[in-house]
């Protein structure tokens, strides 16, 4: 069974392929492979992903660190030679090109555990609670997307996750849930 999803951001095809093999062997999905960091519009939609990033791109990571962290992404730097230690702080972990498989596995494991945790404890994330409150207030997907500055597609994904965590499908049911959990006042 697949655990979580990842994006590989590195310009070397050899490293891309190597990372792909490691991720697949750990059952982590790969949603994209790219040479450099994409536009803000794309990366702000990344949620709960494992990002494997060329440590040379630390400055770009630094510029987007707020949104990447807010959306629960785990960022691992890939270093091919000793890099500037000052930039390390933007990464949750650093994988060195010379690391052996067992060491890499340990470094990736934190992410796997965290993703499995969110799945099993079924607690809504802060973002999901925010969205649920808006659904309960009767806002449409389009209105929610506009207010949160996210795409309708992301709203739908959040709603699917909320439904699967709570086991409640209808808008009326979600409203009732939100009221009982004091997120909104029923009029």
């Amino acid at each position: 069974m697949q655990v979580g999803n990842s994006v590989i951001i590195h310009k070397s095809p050899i490293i891309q392929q190597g990372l792909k093999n490691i991720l697949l062997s750990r059952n982590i999905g790969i949603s994209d492979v790219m040479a450099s960091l994409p536009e803000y519009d794309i990366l702000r939609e990344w949620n709960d992903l494992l990002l494997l990033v060329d440590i040379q791109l630390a400055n770009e990571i630094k510029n987007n660190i707020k949104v990447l962290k807010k959306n629960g992404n785990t960022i691992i730097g890939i270093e091919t030679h000793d890099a500037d230690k000052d930039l390390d702080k933007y990464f949750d972990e650093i994988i060195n090109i010379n690391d052996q498989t067992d060491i890499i596995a340990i470094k990736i494991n934190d992410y796997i555990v965290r993703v499995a945790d969110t799945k099993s404890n079924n607690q809504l994330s802060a973002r999901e609670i925010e969205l649920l409150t808006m659904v309960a207030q009767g806002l449409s997907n389009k209105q929610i997307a506009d207010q949160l500055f996210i795409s309708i597609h992301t709203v739908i994904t959040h709603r699917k996750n909320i439904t699967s965590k709570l086991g409640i499908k209808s808008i009326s049911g979600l409203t009732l849930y939100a009221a009982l959990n004091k997120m909104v006042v029923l009029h």
Partner: protein
Amino acid sequence: MITENDKLSDVIGRNIDLLPIIHRLGLSTNIGERNIREVCNDHVKDVNFILVILNTYSSDNYFPKPDDLDLKPLIDFLTQTHTYHKQVTIPRLNGFIQQLKQNMPNEKLLLVIEKYLNQYIKKLIQHIDFEEKDIFPLVNRKLMVDEKSVNIKKLFRQHTNVENEISDLKTIIIRHIPQNANMDLIHDLLHTLSHFEKEQLDHARFEDKILIPKLLKLLSI
């Protein structure tokens, strides 16, 4: 799979939830040792139609084919089912809520559930009226041709909501049972909701799998 040679009493014995359905089909009296074919003959009912109904309600894996059924008896049965929910299921659910309220007058959960249930019932009755006024008459070609394709699509959409809301209510009640609740009443309420949910699913299955395809064919949309 239920066949015409099965004794009707055995069929009911295996699944007593079929009794109200058999009653709605007009077959609940004078059963004795008779098999389904014999009971149908006694009551002048089409045995194939009765078998499709009984099998749909007894097995989730049974999917009736549109060609198996005449529309007229199906519409009669669906209308009877609507009447049953209006006259029996809805008052029963309301009754449980009122009893629970006497039991726990200040329980906020009950007030919220009552409000939810009332909204649901209002929607359900609207849905029933829509079917009986805008859909069922299509069978007798009593409606203008232009309106119907829109109406039929609307019917599909409404079903999913109607079923999900009952299932959600059940889920929410189970999670929030108050400490001092009368557990027998809660159990009866949940039992009625489960039964109602199952009936709604089967009812929608008739409409989505038989009624709508047949209507579309009939009207050659």
